[in-house]
């Protein structure tokens, strides 16, 4: 199975991002099974690393105005979070 790919927007200084610690973030799915769902966003609790091979899934990083960073990072999704009130 192909490696899953996501991207995320990091709004702080990249040097201040904590690696290998649980953190909440929004991911966008870049290679869903059904292509119509590309860029679907969701909240997760996960751990990230600048080392592309450290965690199972590839993570592309964008800055606050959409600037894509040249090298991908990696991510391990621990759980998906649901943020909306129950209907």
């Amino acid at each position, binding site marked *: 199975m192909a490696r899953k790919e996501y991207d995320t927007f990091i709004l702080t200084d990249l040097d201040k991002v904590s690696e290998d610690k649980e953190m909440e973030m*929004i991911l966008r799915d870049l290679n869903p099974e059904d292509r119509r*769902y590309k*860029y*679907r966003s*969701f909240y997760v609790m996960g751990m990230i690393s600048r080392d592309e091979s450290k965690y199972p899934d590839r993570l592309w990083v964008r800055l*606050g105005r959409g600037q894509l960073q040249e090298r991908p990072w990696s991510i391990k999704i621990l759980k998906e979070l649901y943020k*909306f009130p129950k209907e």
Partner: protein
Amino acid sequence: MGLIKFYKDNREFIKALESYGELVTIQQEVDWDLEMGAIVRRVCEKRAPAPYFKKIRDYPGFEALGAPLATYPRLAIAMGMDPKASVPEICDEYVRRTSGTPIAPILVDREKAPCKENILMGKDADLFKLPGPMVHDGDGGRYLATWHFIVAKDPDTGVINWGMYRQMVFDEKTMVGPVLPFSDMGKMFYGKYVPKNKPMPFATVIGCDPLSGVAACAPSPIPEDQFTGMLMGAPVELVKCETCDLEVPAHAEIIIEGEVIPNVWIEEAPFGEYTGYRTSPREPRTVYRIKAITYRNNPILTVSNMGVPTDEGQLLRSFSLGLEMRRLLESQGIPITGVFMLPESTHHLVVVGTKVAYSGIATQIANLIFGSKLSPWFHMVIVVDDETDIYNKDEVIHALATKCHPIRGIRKYEHSVGTPLYPFAEPEDRRWSRGAQVLFDCTFPLHWPKSDLPIKVSFNNVYPKEIQEKVLKNWKNYGFQD
């Protein structure tokens, strides 16, 4: 007054654009992921005809119309006018139609409403079933709603608002976008629903008839459903929503119904914006949860691509903002000769012509329009005298460069309402929607002695009438073409 020619839906408008050579039909499949956006962007930058996409990758049966109103000829067609109509002619016609009595909409049965041909409810109402484009590389998500409007109702007065508030798809059931607190819907939602922790019903209308879109852009105090009727010269036909008591244009292509959720925010943006930059920060913004999607058979999505000039956001917002200022100044009896907002300024710069009847008139004009509810959307006013053609950029630049004193001609206004979209603003000012404004007074002071007044050196101004007539009469005889 004769009958006004108007198009009752997007499809009639597409046929009209085609008949005037203002449409390119693209049979080749295009990708919703950036390709469609790139085509629309290039169309805007080249002032090319509107692209009509017949096949969209992953979405058989869906079509799209790009840049529907990005040029004055297309606006003229939407108004039922000759596409060669001049800008002042289109302005005057718009003001004439919208100065009379509002025309209330009429409600039609759902059987007569094409937007009900397909209805998705519950789990089936999934935003990814619609071909929302990834408009620009680097955007925060797919923007399904770029040329559309959102219908909302004031819970106390029942007054309807149609407004263009961009919406980014977050997940199957969620959209998100900025609703600034000074906007009509912002005042409604944050002023009346949020304090009661009540969700606000909304309906997003995509692919409406062109004049409903023009009305939704207009900052008029007249409710937009009635304003559309004035532009059409006939009532706009509405139909009830499936999940709430809102009403939407019966002939629109796609309707998304749901609720704006209080006290929940999720991150939205960045997005290529009307200023021609990706400026406003990615930050928590207003959340829309959807309940139903209804659409016509073979629905045609409308796609605007904001960026460097000129797209329909810049063109129409400039057009209607300028004309609303004209109405305001005329209502106060200010002796103006006209108001024109340059679309190339991304509706940041407005030119006001005046007869300079008294000292201080430029400041009075600036104070009035900067003090109005229109002011957060622009920050530069150029006041020129009546020898400058406000529609002629060359003349306006000449007046600015020659008549505006670099110190006494410039007046700054600090601590104004701004928007997060101003590229020149400090990041903290963007966050708090703080702005600043400036007046460029390009009129010569009245107290100067007449003999000291510079005389404009132009063909029309420094030659006797008989010489002008002789030269014009012989122009081709001299060997000139035109």
